[in-house]
């Protein structure tokens, strides 16, 4: 059963994605949900079920282990609230579950909210430390998140002749886009030379090819499409959604049949989403994409996994400028994770916020003229889990 045109986004909100030293976990939830509720003309009491996405309570502030952290912060009680955790696809998964609830008829107005508070600790005390000190004592010891995504770049370069400079060009493009995004952490252009010469994190990925450590929250409020006009005449519609877990946390590195030049989870999830939405030529039919550029290599592989270009031609696609603002299929007009940062549980919902504003024609200097169809993509773990959502204008 296709989800096409059955769900409407009636409110969307997003905090600054930055080092929010003045805001705590709860403050950010209040800000993102506040913007969304205001847009929908609702109060917290109108929400009948909610999903809270926080991926790493242990790396942050020990908040987000349960839906009760949303209840306490927003003063919303006596409704079901579920905490969602699915690595970097957490936000997309919160959204998906909220949609399922609407389709079941169990609730009429639902909220999906993602939030992550990482910068109460030094960057190396949060996600890097998590890899160094926790996890399996032997398996993957030596990896950080960057390394797990760097090995795909290495293999892609080996098989297709992709250059490290292609990864650099993705960083240059996304940083340039972010200049127009007032909610992005970094809004400064960088040159290819700066990207290539910035400190190495995990070869071939440099610091400027890696997303920073960031705080942030984003929130969406949805209802069934037939009710949407009651709340917001300027709503957008869900056109398609796919979600797939296609390998495991350890398995890719121990599975002789795994190849490192694509993410199967994205292929599976996007094919499902395209089928829902009736998209057959994504490069032509989509007006823009927000894809999961936690590291530049992931954006490059994702071009191919989403079918925006042929296998092995991701480097060529960015080189030609097709994915830059004004290009054939602009990718990450928000600046992407490279510029906005990656408060893990919030990222997927931040992308849907961005697509929503584009489809409403409210994306300011980032606006794609007459945007009708946009895609948001997340990938989590070592490329194991992916969420692909397509939203469309009314």
């Amino acid at each position, binding site marked *: 059963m296709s989800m096409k045109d059955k769900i409407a986004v009636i409110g969307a909100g997003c905090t600054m994605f930055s080092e929010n030293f003045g805001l705590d976990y709860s403050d950010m939830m209040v800000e993102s949900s506040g913007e969304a509720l205001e847009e929908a003309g609702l109060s917290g009491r109108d929400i009948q079920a909610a999903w809270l996405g926080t991926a790493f309570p242990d790396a942050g502030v020990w908040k987000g282990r349960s839906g009760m952290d949303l209840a306490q912060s927003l003063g919303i009680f006596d409704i079901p609230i579920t905490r969602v955790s699915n690595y970097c696809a957490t936000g997309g998964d919160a959204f998906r579950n909220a949609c399922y609830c609407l389709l079941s008829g169990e609730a009429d107005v639902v909220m999906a909210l993602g939030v992550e508070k990482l910068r109460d600790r030094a960057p*190396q005390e949060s996600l*890097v430390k998590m*890899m*160094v*000190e*926790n*996890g399996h*004592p*032997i*398996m*993957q*010891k*030596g*990896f*950080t998140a*960057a*390394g797990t995504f*760097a*090995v*795909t*770049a*290495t*293999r892609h370069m*080996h098989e297709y002749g992709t250059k490290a400079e292609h990864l650099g060009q993705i960083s240059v493009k996304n940083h340039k886009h972010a200049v127009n995004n007032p909610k992005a952490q970094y809004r400064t252009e960088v040159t290819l030379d700066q990207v290539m010469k910035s*400190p*190495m*994190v*995990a*070869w*071939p*990925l440099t610091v400027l090819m890696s997303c920073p450590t960031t705080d942030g929250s984003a929130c969406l409020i949805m209802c069934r499409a037939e009710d949407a006009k009651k709340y917001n005449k300027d709503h957008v519609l869900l056109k398609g959604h796919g979600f797939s877990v296609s*390998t*495991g946390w*350890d*398995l890719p*590195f*121990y*599975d*002789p*049949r*795994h190849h*490192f030049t694509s993410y199967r989870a994205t292929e599976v999830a996007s094919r499902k989403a395209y089928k829902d939405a009736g998209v057959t030529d994504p490069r032509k039919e989509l007006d823009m994409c927000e894809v999961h550029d936690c590291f530049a290599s992931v954006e490059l592989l994702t071009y191919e996994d989403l079918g925006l270009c042929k296998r092995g031609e991701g480097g060529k696609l960015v080189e030609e400028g097709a994915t830059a603002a004004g290009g054939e299929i602009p990718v990450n007009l928000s600046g992407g994770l490279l510029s906005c940062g990656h408060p893990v549980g919030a990222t997927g919902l931040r992308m849907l916020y961005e697509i929503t504003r584009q489809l409403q024609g409210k994306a300011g200097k980032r606006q794609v003229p007459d945007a009708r169809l946009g895609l948001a993509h997340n990938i989590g773990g070592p490329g194991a889990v992916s969420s692909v959502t397509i939203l469309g204008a009314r």
Partner: protein
Amino acid sequence: MAWGRPGGGERAVASYDEDSATMAVSAALACLGARHAREIDELHFVSLSPPYAEKSLSSLVAAAADLGTGLRTGDHGGSLRAGTGALLSALDAVKALTSRHSLVCAADCRQAPPGSMLEMGFGDAGAAVLVGGEGAVAEVLAAVSHSQEILDTWRTDEQRTVRTGDARFNRVEAFAKCTLEACKAVLEKAGIDAKQVAKAVITSPDGKGHGAVAKPLGLDPKAVVDPKTDSLGMLGTAQPFVSLAMALETANPGDRILLACYGDGCDAIVFEVKEAVKHFKAQRRLASPSAPLGYVKFLAYKKMLAECGGESNAFASQIQASREAPISLRFHGKRCQSCGTINTLSLRVCPHCQTRDRFDEVHLARKGTVNTYTQEHYFPTPEPPVTMAVIDLDGGGRYLAQMTDVEAAEVKVGMKVEMIFRRLHEGGGFHNYCWKCRPVREAPK
């Protein structure tokens, strides 16, 4: 490099991820070669610098060398003579038919006080000798042991570094007298004259005392094997076996070899070299291939610096480690009986065909090819960056491992690597060992 001390020379230094147990594993595997590991009935681990004061290392070495569980293991130490002591016990066991094959592994990375002459004089090494079975390169003609209670070289239970007393007393009074006596006795027992000794290995605590025995004993000076103290260092309990291997490499069938090992007494053994020696080539492996090691890095490797990098507080569980020993220690995989995939994770369900609990445990090859890799610059280690390599093992199975003994620039997709047993971190307050990989290299001369 002399590190501010008079004189030149070199010494062998164990890498930051090595200890006497990992070197013993490497030596054991090199010594066994293609021989069937299940035919080893005894394993002796010998060290004055064991990584555990209480816990058997022989059982660890036996597991990592994949010798199974049906064997006798023993740990030896206490004096520089412990290696030959273990060898004599092994010979007795084989002679008594209680063991078909006994493997003696001696390894040391002894700690010296920073800045001392000893620090430059010590060397880190592991060696293994296989006793019993067909095709021996040498047989024992006679053996004599003398015990001597004396204080010349020591380390108390509260000291980290080795101490030595008066140099002249140690050489003349402690070492030379006792060793000479034992050598005379063993030659007499073997019924040979000193001039009939083709090669003589005489180990002394200062690495240079062999002349003080060879001359009065009447050995041909050319027969005395150079312990290579100036290039390798004094190798602790591994010394007699490293020198014996060097002697055997140039020996001829029928030669008599004298091995005298001193340490609170002396073990003296006379060997007769057999035909098989013609094909004998000791397996050599060196950890660090390239650049000279600076003194600061040396101190870091030896954990002599208060803050020397490397991982701290890593999670580890003794219970989990025990459960996962088949893969993480013995390096066994699970071959699916339905689809034949070799799985290297402790999975109960084959990820390819979903067959549950129908696996054959298989020995994984310790060689493979790099499928892809990265170099991690932010993972704490004494030797950054950490190279992480995805390896396609010869004969099937894939494994993710750190690469060690390597320069970052030489790592390539498609390069050949061998698996090597190393120390990973100290999480849980114990040593966490694992299989790393390293480039396959030509053996050093």
